[in-house]
């Protein structure tokens, strides 16, 4: 087993952790960051596994995909942040408008 897989596993871990944070945190900035962390996890998996064949040069296609992915992620993040600012200026708080979930936990 190649050490490359370790990177891939770390990518999967980031993906999972990002998902946890996305669910748990109420503040929108944290949610947006969590999405970015999940994205980084996916990119890490893509790039790391591209180099797993020992002795061969890394596969360039996933690299290109990741670059494309990053630009998409940047764009999405920019829109998300702008939207968050608008939500905050409109509602006074940067959270999704919902009652706390604990209210339904009985």
């Amino acid at each position: 087993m190649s050490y490359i897989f370790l990177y891939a596993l770390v990518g999967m871990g980031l993906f999972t952790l990002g998902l946890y944070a996305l669910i748990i945190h109420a503040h929108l900035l944290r949610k947006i960051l969590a999405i970015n962390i999940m994205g980084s996890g996916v990119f890490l998996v893509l790039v790391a596994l591209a180099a797993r064949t020992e002795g061969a040069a890394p596969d360039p296609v996933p690299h290109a995909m990741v670059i494309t992915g990053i630009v998409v992620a940047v764009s999405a993040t920019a829109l998300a942040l702008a939207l968050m600012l608008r939500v905050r200026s409109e509602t006074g708080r940067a959270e999704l408008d919902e009652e706390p979930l604990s209210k339904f936990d009985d």
Partner: protein
Amino acid sequence: MNNTGENTIPLSLRLLLMVLLTVMAVGLAYAVLSLPAQAPGLSVYAVENINISGVSNPVTAVLLNYRAYDTFLELGVLLLALLGVWSLGCAGCQHQSSPGPVLDSLSRLLVPILIMVSGYLLWAGAHAPGGAFQAGSVLGAAGVLLLLAGWRIHAGLAGLPLRIALVLGVAVFALVGAVLILPGGQLLAFPPAYAGGLILLFETVATLSIAISLTALFLGADPDEEDAS
């Protein structure tokens, strides 16, 4: 902002979530580990065709030739994000702060360096890691720095000229890509002889568009409208 909001999730749900996430992590790990040790990827094809791709860096070849269509759409995504941000009309959402003397002098120092680095990255992309996105983001960083230092685009340029610069990447891709159809080819099919030159053209306009888009995204609102308001 002091409320992290974590306590809105009841403990029971949180425990369930932990279990589920653990299961998911295990599943993902298992999937990764079960992959064949030899990557069945496309590097063979990529390398095979590198000579007619116009560049020697395979990543750039994929980005701007083999899968140039992806790149084209992705420039579209960037433009779209900008359109979205502008449509939100978030003028005044951001705090305006006057730059301190340090930032001021730093920006004067750094901006030329960043422009130079960006140029290098653009040029190096043909044969080594680098290319339009790297160059564009460095150049964009320069723009952000300038904005932080209080620089604003000249009012005369804020309208159509700015917009033209923003759409340059998408427009050139679309135009050239479509023109390439005329002699009987396909969309974005570069004749090998001109591939190198065309890719450089694309990279250049993409760099410019990306840099300006990133800067504009940082600003957050249509400068034309901002003036008006």
